[in-house]
């Protein structure tokens, strides 16, 4: 468990700050959870794929 030595700040009011997190973006940090999601969502994904391929736009 990572415990950091952040100084006590005004970490209280839930403000969102955009920062460069490109080193973290595009990676999967919780792969087991993603795998579980894939299993649960497989039928929904298949349904969407099926609809995509059978829609008239898919022939273009």
């Amino acid at each position: 468990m990572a415990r950091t030595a952040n100084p006590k700040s005004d970490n209280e009011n839930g403000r969102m700050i955009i920062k460069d997190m490109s080193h973290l973006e595009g990676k999967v940090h919780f792969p087991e959870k993603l795998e579980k999601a894939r299993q649960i969502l497989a039928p929904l994904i298949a349904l969407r794929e099926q609809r995509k391929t059978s829609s008239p736009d898919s022939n273009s």
Partner: protein
Amino acid sequence: MHLPRYHFYAGATKTIFEFVSEGPKGYIHKLVEYSPVNSNDIYNLGFGDVDELEEPYNDMIVSNNGDSAKVLATVAATVFEFTQKYPKASVLATGSTKSRTRLYRMNVNRYLHEIQEHFVIFGYCKSNSWEEFNNKKDYEAFLLTRIENRNEIWLELQTLNLTMKTVG
């Protein structure tokens, strides 16, 4: 929803968020990520403690930092930000353990009224079927989307339920 929550950092794509939990165990770095699940509009919510020395990060750790409501309120705030950027997104959330999934359900129950102003939640049952969230039932997972997408996704989930019945 104006619950106490932590400051949080967002990456430019708003698919990754960070914040620091403060409590008796010290300062604990938390990461929330939204990963696409094979399809453009379906995402998995990953959440856990950051450990620079160990990747992938561990979502099984029980931090016991005495601030679980505040931590979950911060995660909820990231859901709000994420779905503002990706309004068609559906987000799947599962706990890493049954007790954690139950904790999520209890928090959804507590703030259901506020959540339902913006979102609709579907529960994934043990029987592999989907239903609109019922505060008296336990679920294996939750699928959340903005209220504007309700009819579209509910139609899909009903189709899946029907298929399950036919196959079963």
